[in-house]
């Protein structure tokens, strides 16, 4: 049973308010090391330079969307196996399917309740304590 406090997380979302909400949710779940970036372009070098265990990324972002970000992460020999959870909108089924092809570990449909995020993380890491 992994300790949430030992899992390093990078949250990527272009909306400051959404990042703050996800950070709060993760902290309430026991995560202590939560970083965030407003774009995938900023997040990619950040996780390459300082590895994390879990990336939670929005799909719908300008410049580099979540799929492009996922593809870049998976192509990196060092961080390629980092757990990646994608946040998508309700009407983006094709995005989920494409993300699965690219190796996403799970996805969460926005808007989501905190319990839904916890459930998806636990499906990858196992039950958190």
């Amino acid at each position, binding site marked *: 049973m992994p300790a949430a406090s030992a899992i390093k997380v990078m949250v990527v979302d272009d909306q400051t*308010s959404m990042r703050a*909400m996800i950070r709060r949710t993760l902290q309430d779940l026991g995560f202590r090391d939560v970083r965030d970036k407003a774009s995938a372009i900023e997040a990619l070098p950040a996780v390459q330079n300082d590895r994390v265990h879990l990336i939670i990324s929005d799909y719908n972002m300008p410049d580099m969307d979540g799929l492009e970000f996922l593809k870049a992460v998976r192509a990196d020999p060092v961080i390629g196996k980092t757990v990646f959870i994608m946040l998508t909108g309700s009407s983006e089924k094709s995005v989920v399917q494409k993300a699965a092809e690219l190796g996403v570990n799970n996805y969460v449909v*926005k808007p989501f309740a905190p319990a839904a995020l916890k459930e998806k993380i636990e499906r990858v890491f196992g039950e958190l304590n």
Partner: protein
Amino acid sequence: MTMSGPTKRIAIIQGENAVVSEPGTVITTLLGSCIAVCLHDPIAHIGGMNHFLLGEPGRGQHVAAADMNRYGLHAMELLINAMMQKGASRLRLSAQVFGGGNIQAAFGPIGTRNAEFALRFLKTEGIAVGQTNVGGAQARKVEFRAWDGIATCALVAQAPPLRPVAQFRPPSASSDVELFA
């Protein structure tokens, strides 16, 4: 260029949004304590409006996923994303904010809190706010000419009836999207 004599009207209720890029279309809604935020990209001529019931859940508050889209935090995300999908640039967006009336004393200053949330959200996200018409104790009717970004807001005597929130439908097990059981 501005348009006169709009020919198409789109009425939205709480939990919904509409984004249009065609001239001659008006998005309308009726507000009590709810908030409507109108966003506009003046270069792409894309405009959108949402209508949300509450600002954001309290920390630790348990909210069902199906109820999350009545909150402004998600309503704003959906609206901004819909605007961008139509071709709007986030950097060019400006906002107008309406509603937030404290219609029923029994509910306390819920309208005021909703308006505060909307203005705080827009400030946090760096979206400029133009016209605002919030607070007070009356209902409002908002009409937004999305193509040219012109909104009008009129006080009305009657608060809108409470209607069911438009249902958010996450992909179900039968929708072939659950790939990670």
